[in-house]
């Protein structure tokens, strides 16, 4: 296949179609609406299921129902809509069903705005719905990666009977880039032995997330956690740039990581030995590579388009062995490479501070500047 100029939301939609998507249920919300619009035409022309639901509550529960039948199913939304889906996601996790969800993040909290943001990190990576569960979270930084990770999302969802969320910001949903779509996969014709598709000539099957006996619920919780251990063992993915000889490390995901790469290149041009680690899986988090870098580097700078959400996960990996700095732009603002370059300079020039939280120090600087 040749490269085409593709808009992020459309590219994800078509990638899902080619990955064998059989049913899509969604609700309009900026900045992901083109995904729904595209599939409203594309799915029916292929004889596949498309429903514009009455709400995100409706959409995620339609996804839940379809997932019970073992089909490849997906929804997409943006931050406020994702909040509405949290109930359904918790049920889907409790029922241990494969589902793919796309979150094209916008500024928040509340109605916020429609500008690009990474402010759903905590909600998506660390839960949001009730109970103990562990979705797989994939974070693309360009359109090609968004395509590839969407295809991967379906395979991982089925391999682990898990929710897989592709987490990207509004700029990736809206921008156009040359990218290559995957070949069209045939739709599945055989279904897993748990699918509720009618008990034709077999024992009935049940999908539920209720375990009134706490001992049974605990058993389920431990089974879900054990499965998560497998995910952590097998599925950690990250991208490394200029890390071989790096004395300083920048860590950022998605668009923040991509902009940070420009800053790292500029710093390298100045002779600064700095590299970039960009987590591709936010869950499972690349703990080991970050732990290793924390042990060998003079400083780590975390860059995010929020107020320091992944920062806490990096701090947990660093375990105080290296100074951790933070630079964030919440509210729907994409940092410029020059801003991040200035932060790299600061990290190197500043005396090491042993006390205080990097978020607090960042906030102090932000307030001074505004």
């Amino acid at each position, binding site marked *: 296949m040749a490269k085409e100029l593709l808009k992020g939301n459309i590219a994800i939609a078509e990638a899902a179609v080619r990955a064998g998507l*059989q*049913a899509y*249920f969604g609700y309009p919300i900026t900045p992901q609406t083109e995904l729904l619009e595209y599939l409203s035409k594309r799915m029916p022309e292929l004889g596949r*299921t498309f*429903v514009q*639901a*009455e*709400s995100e*509550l*409706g*959409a995620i*529960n*339609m*996804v*839940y*129902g*379809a*997932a*019970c*039948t073992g*089909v490849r*199913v997906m929804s997409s939304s943006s931050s406020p809509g994702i909040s509405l889906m949290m*109930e*359904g996601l918790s*049920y889907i996790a409790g*029922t241990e069903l494969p589902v793919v969800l796309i979150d094209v993040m916008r500024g928040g909290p509340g109605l916020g705005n429609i500008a690009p943001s990474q402010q759903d990190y905590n909600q998506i990576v660390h839960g949001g719905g009730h109970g103990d569960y562990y979705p797989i979270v994939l974070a693309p930084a360009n359109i090609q990666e968004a395509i590839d990770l969407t295809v991967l999302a379906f395979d991982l969802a089925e391999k682990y009977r898990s929710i897989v969320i592709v987490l990207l910001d509004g700029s990736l949903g809206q921008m156009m880039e040359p990218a290559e779509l995957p070949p069209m996969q045939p739709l599945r014709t055989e279904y897993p032995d748990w699918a*509720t*598709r*009618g*008990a*034709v*000539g077999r024992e*009935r*099957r*049940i*999908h*539920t*997330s*209720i375990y009134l006996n706490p001992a049974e619920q605990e058993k389920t919780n431990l089974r879900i956690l054990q499965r998560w251990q497998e995910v952590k063992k097998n599925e950690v993915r990250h991208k490394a740039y200029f890390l071989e000889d790096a004395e300083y490390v920048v860590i950022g995901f998605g668009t923040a990581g991509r902009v940070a790469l420009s800053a790292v290149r500029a710093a390298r041009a100045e002779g600064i030995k700095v590299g970039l680690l960009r987590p591709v899986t936010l869950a499972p988090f690349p703990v080991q590579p970050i732990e290793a870098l924390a042990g060998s580097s003079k400083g780590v700078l975390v860059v995010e388009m929020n107020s320091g959400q992944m920062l806490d996960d990096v701090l947990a990996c660093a375990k105080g062995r290296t100074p951790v700095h933070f630079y964030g732009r919440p509210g729907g603002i994409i940092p410029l490479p020059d801003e991040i370059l200035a932060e790299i300079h600061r990290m190197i020039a500043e005396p090491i501070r042993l006390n205080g939280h990097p978020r607090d120090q960042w906030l102090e600087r932000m307030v001074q500047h505004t």
Partner: protein
Amino acid sequence: MVMDTETTVYHRPASLTDLGTHYCPGCTHGVAHRLVAEVIDEMGLRETTIGVASVGCSVFAYNYFDFDFVQAPHGRAPAMATGIKRVLPDRIVFTYQGDGDLASIGMGEIVAAAGRGENITVIFINNANYGMTGGQMAPTTLPGMKTTSSPNGRDVESQGYPIRTAELLATQEGAGYIVRRSLHDPKNIRLAKKAIRLAFETQVRGLGFSLVELLSSCPTNWGMDPVDALKWIEQNMIPYFPINDCKVHPVIASLRI
């Protein structure tokens, strides 16, 4: 006279599992379950039906029906049923929901499903209170009726009026069959069974959304014995929730079962 042969004239439907239910003595959930199971048996749909349980006393309905079943979040059963029906249009999909589930937290999902003409069937149990949580006021609680959250009786000035769900949903163009029946005596139980049959016939024929509202008793939370509870349905619920053919598709109206 000594009979030398015995013939079974009444048996457990194949669509019901051989399991005692968790429902309170005198509750009409058991009757409603049996009617649904009999209809599914008679129509030969056991292997092709997928049920959707809701949240409330009937959350464990899937234990009692012997076919594929899923269990929905509170109020979301019509959305879940939509997801199943759209990917398996040749299957029979029904939800089994109480009044708190359907007419309160799930009002959005049920109206949208009826509006879309979603080709599913809904068995709607109206017992005028939230049973599972211990008898709180529901959207169907009658004016003046005492519950654990309307201890002085439902005051319509501050707590509003009961919602007539069947009539409300019958305004939807996508609805093919919407009726209300009652489970308070044998005659009405027979009429209820026929309505359930016609609701499933509506789905089999692809005639749109179908719903049977069943006036049901809740002796435990109403603080009555089972017989008084059935009388209470007749004397108090039916005047507000009339037994009614709210909407019947002409094809179904002409059907002779």
